[in-house]
C-alpha cells in the first residue's frame, strides 16, 4: 500500500515546481477575486483606443 502511495507521489515529482507555481497563482487569484482587485488596470482609467484610422474621439479636433 505504501509502495503504491510513494509511487503515486513519485509520479508527481517532475511537476513539483509547476504545482508550487500553480498553488501560488491560485492563492493570488483567490485574493484578487475576493478583494475585487482587477489585475493590470493602472490608475483606474480606461482611455479611448487610438489604433484605428477611423478614430474621431477625444483629441480629434479640426
Amino acid at each position, binding site marked *: 500500500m505504501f509502495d503504491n502511495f510513494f509511487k503515486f507521489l513519485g509520479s*508527481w515529482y517532475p511537476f513539483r515546481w509547476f504545482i508550487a507555481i500553480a498553488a501560488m497563482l491560485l492563492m493570488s487569484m*483567490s485574493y484578487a477575486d475576493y478583494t*475585487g482587485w482587477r*489585475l493590470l488596470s493602472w*490608475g*483606474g482609467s480606461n482611455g479611448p483606443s487610438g489604433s484605428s484610422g*477611423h*478614430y*474621431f474621439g477625444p483629441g480629434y479636433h479640426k
Partner: protein
Amino acid sequence: MGKVTGIYQCPSCAKPVTFRSMETRIFICSCGAVINRLESDDLVIKPALIIQDHNDLLRTGSKGLVQGQPFEVLGRFRLWLEESVMNYWTLLIGGNTVCLLMEGYGMYALMRSTRTEKALTAHELDGMGLTQSVVLGESDYFLQRKDACWKYEVEGEVWMPECRDQFPLFDLAATGDKHLSFIEYLPDYLVAYECKYVDLKSLQLTGLNERETTVLELKCSQCMSVVRVKTFPYAQSCSCPSCGARYAFRQGGNFRNSGFDRTGKDKENKNQLAIPLGAKGVLKGIEYEVVGYALKEENSPEAFRWAEYVLYNRGEGYAFLSEYEGNWIYGRQKGNTPVLARENPTELHYRNKLYKVFNRYHIRVVDTAGEFPYDVYDDKNTQSAEFIAPPYMWISEKTRDASIEWFYGEHQDRDELLEQFQYDLPEQYGRGVLDPKGFSSMSASGLVKVTLLAIAALVAVHLLIGATKTNRVVLNKDVLLHDSTSSTTLSSSKFELTKWRSNLQLDIQAPVDNSWLDLQAVLVNAGNGNEYAVEQVVEYYHGYDDGESWSEGSNQGSAYLSSIPAGSYYLRIQASRDTTNGTWNSMNNFTLTVTNDVSNHRNLWIFIGVLLIWPIVQFIRMWIYERRRWEGSPFSPYRSNKS
C-alpha cells in the same frame, strides 16, 4: 518395490540408492555410476557425463520457495547448446511433485511439462521463422529460439526423460509473458514445458554453494600467455590479454584448451578500459565483477564506437555496461520480453509502455579483453535493434533466423557508477540515448494532464468566489445633457461599501452615433476624503468607405474601480460629449449604473495565461532536448523530410 519405497540397488556397486521422487529417472551413485530408472522400474547404467565443475550458486541440496511452497534441489542436467550452456535443476516441491528450474545467465524459469492443444512436431517448429506464429490456446506463440544440444551432463537425482546424445530445442513466446519450451529428447518425442520466469530473490534460496570458483586457464597459442576464464562454461569466448588473440568455444574445439579455438586477432589491441578487469562494485544492489570489455563499432559509414563492459555475479549472471560519449547504460538479458509479430517494427509495446525504434545495425568488434557469455566475435550474423522509452530501452539481437535475444537497458548515472568504480571514467559530453531528461523526465501527456488540472482548479476557485459576490447596484441614474453644453457635472448621493475591500463596476450606456462621450468619475470617501478616479470613453462610429461599410466601437462601456476599502462614498461625475459633429444634439442623455462587488473574469484569464508559461517553456525545452537525443538516429521523429 522401488516405486513405493524409492530404495534400489545400484547395478554397478550393489549399494542401496534412494530416489526421492517417483518421477525422477536418473541418479548418480556414490560409486560414480549414472543410474537410469526405466519405465519398467528396472535400473540400468546410462552412459551419460557427470558434471565435474561446481562453480554455480545453486547446488544439490539447496532449498527455497516457489509460489509459497518449499522446494529442495535434487540434481540437474546441463545442456551445452550452440552458443550457451543452460542448467535444468530438478526441484522437489512440497516433498512430492517435481519441476525444472531452468537457470543460466542470470535468468531463472520454472518449467512444468504440459500438453499443447495442437500436437506439434520438431519438424514443424524447425520450419518456423522468427516472426511466424502458431496458435496454441488463445495465444499466438512466436518462435524465439531454435537451438541444439550437442552435449548433456547430469548431477544428483534428475527429472529427465530418456534422450539421445544430441537433440533440438525450441522456445516460443506469446505476449503477456507466456513462454513454451519444447525439447525433442528422442525422435518424434517432443516434450512441451510451460515456463514462468522468476527473479532470483523471489526463490529465497538457502544452502547455496559458497565455495570459491575455479578458474579455467588457457594457453594462448600465439604468445603462450595464460588466459584466465573465470565464468566457464558460461563464458563462450575470450581474448588473450597480451597479444589480443581471440578464442571462441566450439563444439569439438581444441581439447588442449578446453574446447576454445583461436578465431583471429583484435583489429586494435589497445585495451583502453576505463574500468579494469577484476574491478568490483555494486550496481542495482548486485555485487558485480568486471570480467570482459569489448570496443564495438557500428557497421555503417558513421562507424560509431562504444565500449561494453561485461559484469558478472554468481547468482544474477551477466550484465552489461555500455559507454558512449560518457553516457552509460546498464543492461541485462531478460526472459520476459516483448514479442515481435513482424520484421523490423518501428515501435513496440511492452507492459503498457511504448518503445520507439532508435537504431538498427550490425556491429564489428574492434578490441576485446577478458571473457564473454556468447561468441562476441561472431558479429556478422547478428542484427541489433534498439527500442527506447528513456530512461529504458529494449535491445533485440537477432542471429541468423534462429534466435532473438532481448536485453533490457536503463540509464546508468555516471556519478553513481563513479561511487562504485573509482576510476578515471570518461567525461560526459554527448546526449545520452537514455538520459532521463527531455520527455522522459516528464511525459508530454503528464504535462498536459497536470496543466489541465491546474486550470480546472483556477476555474473552480474563481467560480466559487464569484458565487459569493453580492452584485449590489449602488447607483442607477439617467443623466441629461443640456443642448447648449458640451459637458455636465454632477454628484451622486452617498452609498455604503460594507465589505472589507471590494470593487465597483461603472456601466455607461449612451446613444452615441459617430460621436463620443467621455465620462470622468471620482469616487470620494466621505469619511477621509480619499479619491479614486476612473475615466471611460463611449464611442461609436460607422460609415461606408471604398465600397465597404464599417463600424467601430459601441454605445456602451464599462469601467472598474479596484479593491476599494469599506466606507461611505459618493461619486463626482463629469461627462463630456463630442461637439465637433453636426449630430451632437441628438446625444443628450446617458445612463450610468454602478454595481458593487462584482465578479471579474479578466483576472481568471490573466492567471491562466501566467500559469501556462511554465508548461509551454518546459515543453519547448524538452522538445529541443528530444530532438538532440534523436540526432544520431536514422529513425528520428524530429527529422524533416528535406534532411
